[in-house]
């Protein structure tokens, strides 16, 4: 049940994230990508297997783990990925807000860097 539930939640988060990212609102896109990142982190965490286990902490006085503990490596990797993802998400929010600049901006109509073709079908001129 654990495995199924876990996989289901990864799938749901990923699908919802991409669904949002495929909307045309810039902030929705960023939120969606953040969710997709969360799903990836969850998957990475799952790579260490989601079994019931104690945290990989040695209590004071212990010198070795006597009981089953969670796999510490994916945790460390996920921690790294979370922080990187957070930095990128912050950047993305700032970029989306700057791009929108308080206006309604359609993510499918960003044409300053990619001008649409000219009337005769030839490529449009870049600034």
């Amino acid at each position, binding site marked *: 049940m654990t495995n199924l539930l876990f996989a289901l939640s990864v799938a749901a988060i990923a699908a919802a994230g991409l669904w949002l*990212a495929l909307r045309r609102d*810039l902030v929705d*896109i960023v939120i969606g*990508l953040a969710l*997709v*990142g969360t*799903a*990836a*982190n969850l*998957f*990475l965490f*799952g*790579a*260490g*297997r989601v079994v019931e286990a104690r945290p990989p902490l040695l209590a004071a006085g212990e010198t070795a783990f006597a009981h089953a503990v969670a796999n510490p*490596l*994916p945790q460390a*990797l996920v921690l*790294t*990925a979370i922080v*990187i993802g957070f*930095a*990128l998400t912050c*950047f*993305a929010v700032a*970029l*989306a807000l*700057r*791009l929108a600049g308080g206006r309604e901006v359609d*993510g499918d109509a*960003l*044409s*300053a*860097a*990619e001008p649409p073709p000219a009337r005769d079908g*030839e*490529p449009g*001129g*870049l*600034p």
Partner: protein
Amino acid sequence: MNAVLLLTALPVLWPMLTMLACIACAGRSRWQEGVAFAGAVGFVAITVALLAGLADGAAYVAHFGDWPAGFAIAFRIDRLGAAMLAVSALVLLAVLLYPARVDASGPVGPWSRPLLFGLMTGVGGAFSSADLFNLYVWFEVMLIAALGLLVQGGRAAHFEAGFKYLVLNLVGTVWLLVAVGGLYGVAGQLGFGQLAAVLPGSGQAALVTVFVALLLLALLSKAAAFPLFFWLPAAYPALPTPLLALFAGLLTKVGAYGVMRVVGEIAVPVAQPLLPALGWLAVLTMLAGVLGAAWHWDMRRVLAFHIISQIGYILLGVALGSVAGLAAALFYTLHHIVVKANLFLIGGLMRRCGGSFDLRRSGGLSVTRPALALLFALPAASLVGVPLTSGFWAKYLLVRACFAQGAYAWGGVALLVGALTLYSMSKVWIEAFWRRPEAPAAAVVPLPWRAWVACGALAAITLAIGVYPQTLIAFAEAAVADLALPNGGGR
């Protein structure tokens, strides 16, 4: 002090220190320029030292934190990595030598140089690392630095370019993370060498194949392969010329390098059944890139699509999965980085002389600027694959490897794309150099000597490889032979 351990860490440490130094003098432009240039010179020196020490085929290995192999993150710089580092350093030097404001393509702000060295940190790490998750980290370093450089221009075009780049590359990064996590989950290892040892005998062959495929696809999206290339033409043309040249030269090639590593070292037997698909993707990449290039009129977009097309060639070599194929891919990559960076730099000079990046609004440069014409002709010919330039030998090696393995269709497409590249470059030549401009030419503006030196030196490399390719071919073959024997020995 252990010189080997120091030298192995320097491809990351040096640019990172330069980055910090550039941040420290963010307010003083001249100082920062000097620091950056010194940093580039130092980087070149480091890579030269690395290459010099690798003549006998060993590799520089460092296990960070001095933990045992397999448990520590390892840097393992073999000839393949060292060559990529060296050519990156060279392009970096040329790009920094090239004056920042040679055309009106955008300013270079006080934060561009720190970001530039941040980018080089990622590049250096990616070419040195022998750990899959660590590779992911360096890709993220490159991604955020590239994004920063994209938006530094501060205009709508820059933000839009940055946004598309961000969205598409974040997804590529997610695939990378999933593939790395999955391989760890299945094989329990992250080091290249450990994975190479474990993957073939894994009891989870099907699952391993999926994750290797995902890893390849993630790297392909970083390399701008078909149909994952959208971010490149969407973003690159917004960059100022020197940065554009650096991006064009390096970024996609890091992805291609990753593909080489996976196919040639990490997952040699696992990737074999995936290679035909990779080959056809490479074919589509070549075709899509060159067709897009042939259609466009803006020099930057023409060249941006050519990057995609050339990536296709490199991937085709990798897809052959043989020593000859990988050697061809490596030769192609090294030659192409120099040529592509140079073409963008020269494009900036053409913009300055002709008044526009748009070929429809340029013209007559062969009369007013014969020296520039010559300077352009060399890398352009190399891109096409005209004999006596580096590009000819690159294509020759590749097509020969295709034919030797019976991949006649792939080799044939490679040659066809060569013909289409000829079409595209002749279009640039005819429009920008031959056609008389509609507006009377403005006064002939002088071109800065630094630009001449930067472009001339890169062109000289192209020519030198073209005239005497033996050294580089032998090197590429030796470097690839190292891959087949991942336990080539540390030092």
